[in-house]
């Protein structure tokens, strides 16, 4: 009987409250509304370092603003998107299960397209004034304009991690990586597409070997897909037999590669976070001999964003959290290689003197490249390329054919 009663209570509680959405331009009202709210932050839960950072951010907003943060650990960001879709399908337009999502480009494009996001809010947050809007790609996500529907909280750039005991010298291009892999079979692999980092590897390869990267900025339908991607498939046809397990199995995602390096199964792996290697050496997940490098012509870069679903029941609390993530305090901690080693989204020139000094004093760590060594940042291709290439990869290499 208890169960039935609980179900009845839940059914009652789910009646729409129909409260007006909070207005981010009236920040004190947002803060007031946020106090006492619980924010269910759906973020990928596969990295212990990130999980710890999220827990810390939760404690800090609880102290300062009385907002409780619950980290819902996902295996895949798409789970959260599905959840919001399911809720709308069931007519649950308020009090949804998800209040904030750490979202990636394609999922953002899908959710924005389907009107599943709350906003615009990001550029009205108080800490937006510190954000480096000119120097960093914080207003577009995979070429899709963010329009204030998601708030940036970290910068990411592709680097390659190499175990210097087996691979002492950096490799300057994707072609050099292929040649090294062929000469050392079984010592390199990448996460299996459609994993985000795996597709990033494919995009990085395509950008580095193609003559005309400009075409990737437009939707795939406007280009001669075969002509653009043929060099990529030729590249992979040579590379695949030389991969770890001859390309018959792949690591599930980025962190799974760390374990492979630590087990001395591979010597080279892609990463989307310049500080990841240092952080992993600190926790014993990588051997101390690992260093990072970038390609001569530069590597892909983008920002990590958080977005708020349209039916969240704690939008004010979520905005308070998003604003905190952009604060100098949180950004400094995220950039600390002993914590996360993520790049900051802030503009040093806009910061108060004390914060600027704190950033300057930060020890980048043993395996992290200095900002001027990171080279040129290449823009992300249009999301339609990612989908199409991932599908094609699965057809060619992911079905045992």
């Amino acid at each position, binding site marked *: 009987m208890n169960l039935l009663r609980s179900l009845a209570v*839940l059914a009652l509680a789910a009646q729409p409250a129909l409260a007006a959405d909070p207005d981010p331009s009236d920040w004190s009202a947002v803060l007031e509304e946020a106090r006492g709210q619980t924010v269910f932050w759906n973020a990928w839960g596969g990295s*212990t370092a990130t999980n710890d950072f999220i827990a810390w951010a939760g404690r800090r907003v609880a102290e300062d603003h009385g907002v409780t943060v619950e980290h819902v650990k996902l295996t895949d960001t*798409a789970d959260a998107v599905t959840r919001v879709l*399911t809720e709308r399908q*069931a007519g649950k337009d308020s009090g949804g299960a998800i209040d904030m999502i750490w979202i990636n480009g394609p999922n953002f494009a899908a959710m924005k397209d389907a009107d599943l996001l709350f906003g615009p809010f990001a550029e009205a947050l108080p800490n937006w004034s510190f954000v480096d809007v000119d120097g960093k790609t914080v207003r577009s996500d995979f070429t899709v304009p963010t329009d204030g529907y998601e708030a940036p909280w970290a910068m990411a750039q592709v680097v390659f991690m190499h175990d210097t005991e087996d691979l002492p010298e950096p490799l300057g291009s994707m072609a050099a990586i292929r040649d090294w892999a062929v000469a050392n079979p079984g010592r390199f692999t990448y996460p299996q597409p459609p994993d985000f980092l795996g597709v990033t590897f494919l995009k990085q390869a395509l950008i580095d070997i193609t003559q005309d990267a400009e075409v990737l900025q437009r939707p795939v339908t406007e280009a001669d897909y075969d002509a653009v991607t043929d060099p990529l498939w030729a590249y992979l046809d040579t590379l695949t037999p030389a991969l770890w397990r001859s390309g018959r199995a792949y690591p599930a995602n980025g*962190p799974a590669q760390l374990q492979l390096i630590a087990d001395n*199964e591979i010597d080279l792996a892609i990463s989307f976070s310049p500080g990841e290697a240092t952080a992993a050496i600190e926790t014993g997940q990588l051997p101390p001999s690992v260093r990072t490098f970038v390609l001569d012509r530069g590597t892909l870069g983008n920002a990590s964003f958080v977005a708020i679903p349209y039916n969240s029941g704690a939008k004010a609390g979520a905005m308070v959290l998003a604003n905190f993530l952009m604060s100098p305090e949180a950004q400094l901690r995220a950039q600390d290689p002993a914590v996360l080693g993520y790049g900051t989204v802030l503009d040093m020139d806009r910061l108060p003197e004390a914060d600027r000094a704190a950033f300057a004093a930060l020890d980048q760590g043993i395996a992290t490249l200095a900002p001027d060594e990171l080279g040129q940042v290449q823009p992300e291709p249009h999301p339609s390329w990612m989908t199409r290439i991932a599908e094609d990869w699965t057809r060619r290499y*992911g*079905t045992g054919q």
Partner: protein
Amino acid sequence: MPRDGLVRSVPALTLLAMLGPVLAGLWGTVLPALGHLPAAGETGLSGAPFARLLDWPGLPRAIWLSLGTGLAATLISLGIVALIVAGWWGTPAFRALERALSPLLSVPHAAAAFGLAFLIAPSGWIARVVSPALTGWDRPPDWLIVNDPWGLSLIAGLVAKEVPFLLLMTLAALGQSDGARSLRVAQALGYGRVTGWLKCVFPRVYAQIRLPVFVVLVFGMSVVDVAVILGPTTPATLSVQIVRWMNDPDLALRMTAAAGALLQLALVLGALCLWWLGERAAARLGRAAVLRGGRGWADPALRAGGLLAGAVSALAMLAGIAALFLWSVAGFWGFPDALPEAYSLRTWTRAAPGMADALADTALVALAATALALMLVLGCLEAEHRSGRALTRRGLWLIYLPLLLPQTAFLPGLQTLLLGIGADTGRAPVIAAHLVFVLPYVFLSLGDPWRAWDVRHGRIAAALGAGPWRVLWTVRLPMLLRPVLTAAAVGIAVSVGQYLPTLLIGGGRVATLTTEAVALASGGDRRAIGAYGVAQTAAALLPFAVALVVPTLVWRNRRGLHG
């Protein structure tokens, strides 16, 4: 009298609690599979979802993988169990093996799979122990063992987990098949131990463990968490792919997922038919073998083989759990060191706060689902007893039904349904979903000891003036304390191990040790996985320890009740 009416209504209530969600979920799957999903702007009938399913290039391989791994794991598990029991039942070696295997029954599938993966990978514990001394490896060989495209690791993981289950089921059945006397007669006629058992006792035992064997087959074909950890990835098994489609941001793929779920259902039914045909063939061959009267020249080899296989599967699980624990306290542990360079509690202290929350949710859901299941099962059994009508064969099938359908076929539909009535994102729906899977196991483990109770105890109590309720509370339940607690422990273990129901129905808000562990698995951090795997195992094992200790304490002055 109204209270008697209450008891009589329990069986109906039980069926509703168990089958209601299953049928509703199936309905919620059929509609999108046929192209009806208003949220995606699709209404009416259409063959498009199936067309898209057939268009997936990995489909043929995924189908063969599901069939092959399910059938192979079932066949091998059953074979090992039959050989162990045939060759060693009643011996000290058998008792040792039984003691080693029964706690392993409660080890959650995901933890067992992690343990095995840590053990058999080319950089795993076995390779570390023998390297470089025996192998000369200073770096692990590039061998495809875990995630191999043939699903061999997946089969091994399933076998290691299913052997304890089938062994326990067989032991329960042995009690009712008069095996000892038959075997003695056969041996007197000159039959070897194994051959005699297989020819005389096995057919009777098999008739009783058929449904559990079917459950093993269905589970092996449709499991998700074990397949994610040990199974192939290029492509993955059909059930893993269904869950991926379910989670895709493209809504239309949910219809493909639903079509895949129906295909999965058809595959499972097809495999059950195949198994049924295999049963006929085995029966025919078996009868011919019985008539030939061979006394069993291969007996010693079969005996040794059975013991070896049983010991290997028990050892693999135990060593796997040990490897989980070792990783959870390891500092840097490079290849080919057999042991970590340094030890630290860092993983545990880091994980402790999150783990405490997950443990609280795990315990709440498991205890609530098990308590509900116990009430319903006891009600059913008592109703059966009072009405004098024993459970029919059809009734038994109904109890097994939730276990005979692939989880992927009805849970997604159930999620949509729960959202529709606004009963989502809470612990109550998760408890209700767990109840669907906990109930059958509680029923199965409590049914036989309950019915085996000597009703003359009740008759004496009644003659002394006790009504049926007093007999239940003061005579029957106390006497059956151990089986009741064991059934509760089984229920808790089942609940602790549930992955898909918690994930899909809980909407991510109910984080149990299992969902946290599988989420961590995607990151491959062996230390964190180790810690969660150990915690998960402990959560499932503890209730069994309680079930063992409490009756001994309560009945320390009643030797006959130590059971």
